């Protein structure tokens, strides 16, 4: 039994080593395991035996010692027995020691054998594992390379899409920006023209001129008014003259009456003279006719003079009214004119102020445009940096797919050199000088000229 296991194992091992076949291996393992179990069992038994032997020995020793102590005092014959006993103890101790050594050796052997078995099992496992691991590694490498290529390709396409989208967006923004700038420039140049026109002939000067013309006109109007009043007075005198004319005509009428009376008397006297006074009576009737005619003329003249007087007084009244009215209107117009001139003056001041503001805003706008032009360039720089990212990614993808085609080797990822992004170049935020939205600080070109520009 003791030898059967090692022989079995050795023969199996030899068979395996020679043929390299694997089927005795389970047998070998079973035999080995059995032997190891037997050895372990045996060593456990021997340890237990040794323990009990040692116990028995120590019990015997202690008994003998007691006996020795008792007999030492009374009987020295026991000395020989004691010596024998001592020898026996030494022998026993040697035996115990040997047995312990044997046990330890057996345990060691069992351990070594177990280790050997384990390593045998490991060899088998290692071979399989190695093969499997190789297979897995290749598979993993391919998978990994596929995944990396996929990620690289995805990243590259994403970056490309982002770049083209950004390009489109920025171009649209620039187009709009141009529209705004064009309009702003038109507005600004319009304002400049207006300011120029303003300088050439200002509204206030125009207003002053208009005012002057108007006041001259008003003065003329008032003069005319006074002249009308004077004419009215003259006409008043015409009516006085008419009254004088009336009294004069009265006198003419009286003269006619008296002449008629004289003619009557003459005709009476002629009738009394009879035949001799016939000729005279003819003269008398002619004189009466004359007096009638002069009366009629006087009456006609009277009525005409009355009409004249009436007309003159009407005209005089009308003229007086007109002159008063015209003077009133003149003074009112004067008031209104001065008010209008004030308004014009005020609006002119406002216009001037607005134009000044406009020109300030135009100046600010042109500064903003400068800054926007600068800001738009950062897009271009960003674009370039993205290209630095996208190109290596594309190259990586191509490299990975090539590598897979060739031998499936994992390609080492190499960092592709890109320029370090210099963020310090970005301008800092600030505010524009004239009440506009905060944008970018003004850049002193004289300072920058040295850094940014090199002339050869």
């Amino acid at each position, binding site marked *: 039994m003791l030898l059967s296991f090692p022989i079995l194992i050795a023969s199996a091992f030899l068979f395996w080593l020679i043929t390299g076949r694997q089927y005795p291996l389970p047998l070998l393992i079973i035999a080995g395991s059995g032997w190891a179990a037997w050895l372990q069992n045996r060593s456990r038994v021997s340890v237990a035996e040794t323990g009990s032997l040692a116990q028995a020995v120590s019990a015997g020793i202690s008994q003998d010692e007691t006996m020795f102590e008792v007999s030492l005092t009374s009987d020295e014959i026991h000395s020989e027995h004691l010596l024998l006993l001592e020898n026996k103890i030494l022998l026993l101790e040697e035996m115990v020691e040997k047995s312990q050594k044997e046990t330890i050796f057996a345990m060691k052997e069992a351990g070594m054998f177990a280790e050997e078995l384990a390593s045998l099992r490991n060899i088998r496992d290692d071979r399989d594992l190695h093969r499997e691991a190789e297979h897995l590694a290749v598979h993993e490498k391919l998978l990994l390379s596929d995944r990396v290529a996929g990620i690289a390709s995805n990243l590259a396409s994403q970056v490309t899409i982002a770049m083209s989208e950004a*390009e489109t967006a*920025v*171009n649209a923004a*620039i187009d709009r920006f*141009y529209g705004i*700038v064009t309009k702003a420039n038109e507005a600004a140049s319009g304002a400049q023209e207006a300011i120029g026109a303003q300088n050439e002939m200002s509204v206030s000067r125009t207003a002053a001129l208009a005012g002057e013309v108007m006041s001259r006109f008003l003065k003329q109007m008032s003069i005319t008014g006074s002249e009308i009043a004077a004419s009215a007075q003259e006409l008043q005198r015409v009516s006085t003259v008419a009254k004088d004319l009336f009294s004069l005509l009265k006198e003419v009428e009286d003269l006619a009456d008296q002449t008629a009376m004289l003619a009557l008397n003459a005709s009476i006297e002629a009738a009394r003279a009879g035949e001799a006074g016939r000729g005279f009576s003819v003269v008398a009737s002619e004189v009466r006719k004359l007096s009638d005619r002069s009366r009629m003329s006087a009456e006609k003249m009277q009525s005409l003079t009355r009409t004249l007087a009436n007309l003159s007084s009407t005209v005089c009244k009308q003229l007086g009214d007109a002159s008063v009215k015209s003077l009133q209107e003149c003074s009112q117009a004067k008031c209104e004119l001065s008010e209008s001139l004030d308004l014009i003056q005020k609006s002119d001041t406002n216009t001037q102020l607005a134009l000044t503001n406009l020109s300030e805003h135009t100046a600010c706008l042109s500064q903003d*445009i*400068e800054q926007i*032009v*600068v*800001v*738009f*360039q*950062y*897009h*271009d*720089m960003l*674009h*370039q940096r993205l290209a630095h990212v996208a190109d290596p990614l594309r190259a990586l993808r191509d490299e990975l797919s090539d590598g897979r085609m060739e031998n499936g080797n994992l390609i080492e990822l190499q960092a592709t050199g890109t*320029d370090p992004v210099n963020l310090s*170049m970005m301008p800092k935020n600030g505010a524009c000088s004239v009440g506009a939205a905060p944008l970018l600080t003004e*850049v002193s*070109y004289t300072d*920058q*000229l040295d*850094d*940014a*520009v*090199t*002339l*050869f």
Partner: protein
Amino acid sequence: MSKTALIVDDSSSMRQMVGFTLKGAGFQVIEGVDGQDALTKLKEVPGGKVDIIITDLNMPIMDGLTFIKQARSLPACKFTPILMLTTESGDNRKAEGKAAGATGWIVKPFHPEQMLKVIEKVLPS
């Protein structure tokens, strides 16, 4: 008669920006998308001569340095001011630019006023 400028840059937004600045200063602007395209455009110009050339450094197909060298070999462009406009600011690159025949070097981002000042400086009065 207005002066003519040739702007060479692969970025359309950059060409627009420079063009905008120069048109504002009264220039007529011709654009090239790379060195090769710029050479073609240059040959199409009557007399083969522009007043100033502003070019980028890194461009596909033909880069700025090659373009400058080729442009300098044209008799009409022998003395034309050529400004490089690029994000690169290394002294080595500048030396390369100078060797290729560039008149000046402006680092992006440029300021319109600054660029116009530089152009005023390099243009023969």
